[in-house]
């Protein structure tokens, strides 16, 4: 349903993504891994149309994302980035209501309100829904943003470094939540991940980037191997199989 063909991107003279071909398996969690500057976030941003591509195609449901009507695409595909510095003073509820914008353009219908309430409840934000975002902790704010994309009700969901700046407890909760979104709400989730072991334990499919190219794509067992990881990160890595998962040690 979502795939690219010969996708490229240049910043000035530097090519950051070089003729990349990939497909994202439907209804699964896909993680993009690789060192800084390997092009994973660039790819994610190009799928979401946040930055313009140099050449190539990104086909989503048999149609290039650039040919989609903006509003229709926003009902099918959403992205959540890390840098959510907000210039507005919003409550959690108001933020989540923004998720319904593609459907109602600001005039919420009864159905919209119901979806907003469901999303807030799903993220367990009910008791703080009238608090302002700038009064929340990092973890709560992140949950509020996720509630917004749940209210947006898209089949595909892209998260750029969802574990950035949160502790291991909240990281685990976040990954379990993403699993839940995938299993219960049947969403296809695409993540940019830096923590390899979280990626290994929670992803169905992993795409490993290096220097703007895809080095290896496959399930966790295929990608989380010593050869692949040593090649992309250029440092010695040991892989241990613990409780059926490939855990890598590089410390």
């Amino acid at each position, binding site marked *: 349903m979502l795939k690219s063909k010969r996708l490229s991107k240049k910043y000035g003279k530097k090519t950051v993504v070089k003729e990349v071909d990939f497909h994202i398996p439907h209804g699964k969690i896909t993680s993009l891994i690789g060192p800084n500057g390997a092009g994973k976030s660039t790819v994610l941003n190009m799928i979401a149309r*946040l930055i313009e591509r140099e050449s190539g195609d990104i086909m989503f449901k048999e149609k290039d994302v650039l040919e989609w009507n*903006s*509003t229709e695409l926003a009902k099918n595909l959403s992205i959540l980035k890390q840098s959510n510095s907000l*210039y*507005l*003073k919003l409550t959690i509820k108001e933020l989540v209501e923004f998720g319904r914008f593609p459907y109602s353009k600001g005039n919420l219908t009864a159905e919209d309100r119901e979806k907003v309430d469901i999303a807030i409840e799903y993220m367990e934000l009910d008791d703080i829904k009238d608090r302002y975002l700038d009064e929340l902790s990092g973890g709560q704010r992140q949950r509020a943003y996720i509630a917004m994309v749940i209210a*947006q009700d898209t089949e595909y969901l892209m998260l750029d470094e969802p574990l950035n700046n949160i502790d291991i407890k909240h990281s685990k909760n976040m990954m379990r939540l993403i699993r839940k979104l995938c299993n219960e709400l049947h969403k296809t989730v695409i993540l940019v991940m830096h923590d390899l072991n979280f990626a290994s334990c929670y992803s169905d499919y992993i795409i490993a980037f290096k220097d703007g190219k895809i080095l290896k794509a496959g399930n966790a067992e295929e990608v989380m191997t010593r050869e692949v990881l040593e090649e992309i990160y250029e440092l010695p890595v040991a892989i241990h199989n613990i409780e059926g998962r490939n855990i890598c040690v590089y410390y």
Partner: protein
Amino acid sequence: MQLNKKKFLLLLLTICSLCLYLFIDIKPGTFDYAMKLRLPKVAGVILAAVCLSAGTLIFQTLVNNRILTPCILGLTPLYVLTQTVIIFFWGSTSLLVVNKTANFLLTIVIMLMCSMFLYRILFERQSQNILLLLLIGTVLGSLFSSFNQTLQRIIDPNEFMVLQNKLFASLTNINAEILFLGAILLFSVIIWCYKDLKYLDVISMGKEQAISLGVNYKQKVKKFMLAVTILISLATAMIGPVTFLGFLVVNVTHEIIKTYKHKYLIIASVLIGCITILLGQTLVENVFHFNATLTSLITFTGGSYFIYMVMRENNA
């Protein structure tokens, strides 16, 4: 509801300041004469307040910044340059100076053409960076200012006096024709943009959020930038440069009406804009007896408020 109460209070205050300006100090038997003088001015004030307040509000949403004003687009120096060039080359007795309507039309056409040219270059290119637009605006603004200074230094001193009068914001430039043309232009902008106002709510969340929520960002920003330019050019051509008014009004609006919904924000900012100019003009006419200009009053208030804002940001 509290929001409604605030809006009602603002409306009440606007009507009060309107009446104050209209009916203050009328000698018996001169009522008709006073109205004939004051009503066009009031109409001009309202038009200019709508343009400046709405223009600044939309602009600050587009750039996601509450301290910038549309002045940074370089429109004010361009206005000054237009007036300076006209008086420098054709003299203060030329048709373009004496006939206020012709002057108004020429000014507005020049400002719009320059902006369109700038936007065309910028939006045709791949990068749709608003900051680049602001940078170009600032640089061009300084360039125009240098031209102005050079021309004003070598201009005939008598002509300079005429010029200087044009460069202070005042309501004396307004006549019925200008009012009529201005109102038509303003209404076409309102009709053109009205349906898209809801997109501003999302654009105020930032570019990435807006795109993710299905806003055709490039198209909408281009449209609103053009609308801002028309509004600000219109206001400048009507009452002259008022740097701080928009800034003052929009920040006070955000302070009073705590909502992100632009349909409320715009109405409130327009009302506050009317109150500010009307009270300012009443002060100029009745307290300072025309010894101070509207510009200096507004710049003084706006400047003080700006310093207050910066200090508060520092403390926060």
